[in-house]
């Protein structure tokens, strides 16, 4: 069961992919289309596991991740 989830503002994401490297559950992956700025943003896998640990938000340089937890 999912304990949490994250919301990523893909229009502001610059695709540095640091959140992907640090997500302990591997639930973030590159999106499949570019955003308006020409960057490849990341997306949260809807079926992925998330504990709401907020590590992704902590390392996000663009402050585009919001974390929700039970």
């Amino acid at each position, binding site marked *: 069961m999912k304990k*949490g*989830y994250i919301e990523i503002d893909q229009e*502001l994401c*610059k*695709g*540095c*992919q*640091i959140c992907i*490297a*640090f997500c302990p559950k591997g639930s973030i992956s590159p999106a499949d289309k570019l955003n308006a*700025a020409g*960057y490849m943003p990341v997306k949260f896998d809807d079926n992925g596991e998330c504990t*709401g640990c*907020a*590590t992704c*938000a*902590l*390392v996000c*340089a*663009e*402050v585009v*991740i*919001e*974390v*929700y*937890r*039970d």
Partner: protein
Amino acid sequence: MKKVYSRPKSLKKATFHYCPGCGHSIVHRLLCEVFDELKIQDRVIGIPPPGCSVFAYNYLDVDMAESAHGRGAAVATGIKRACPEALPFTYQGDGDIAAIGTAETIHAANRGEKITSIFINNAVYGMTGGQMAPTTLLEQTTTTSPYGRDAALEGYPIKLSEMLALVKGAAYIERVAVNSPANIKKAKKAIKKAFQTQIDDLGYSLVEILSPCPTNWKMSPIESWKWVDEVMSKEYPLGVIKDITGEKDAD
């Protein structure tokens, strides 16, 4: 579900102009989180430097006064003496604080000015295209040291924080990095303590932050984060360099 993490209140809703994976944007966010937690947004006056972070006023929702290159500590001194209730902080890169502004910084620390400096050390001149800085590591290649920095020709990496620790007016100096979740948490703690030092009128406080610059290091963001750990923090060891805040009275 409850929201457990969102944008700090004092960080404006604007897209950073920094490159993907840059440490500046993380430090901006940490500063805003500290302003919110200490409830000092109305008292803080920032002094951004020439350099990549020259546009910091577009992001930090606090008062800002731009200074000439390297003169941040002098401007902050003026602000603090004119408005003692204000909390001026300088935000300076290595080209600013460790090259052109070394004299101002050392003398401000020596006078024990009650100001805070945030020193972003990325070992190159970022905005101008990755030239060698005084903080560039030995054998590191930059656009102006294409064969690597040679000590015989260009000297050694300068350790400004250790130099400032010898100065009597400095109360709190710590070196941190923003290259992993644990280090980012430590960096926030250090920034908070630096502002607390100023609020308590204990003296000069400085936080040196090793910050990745993927573009000028010619690395991917994640490689640059690892490089800080594997190479840069060997030359610039992390940790508290000077802390006399516990020895002085808070009033």
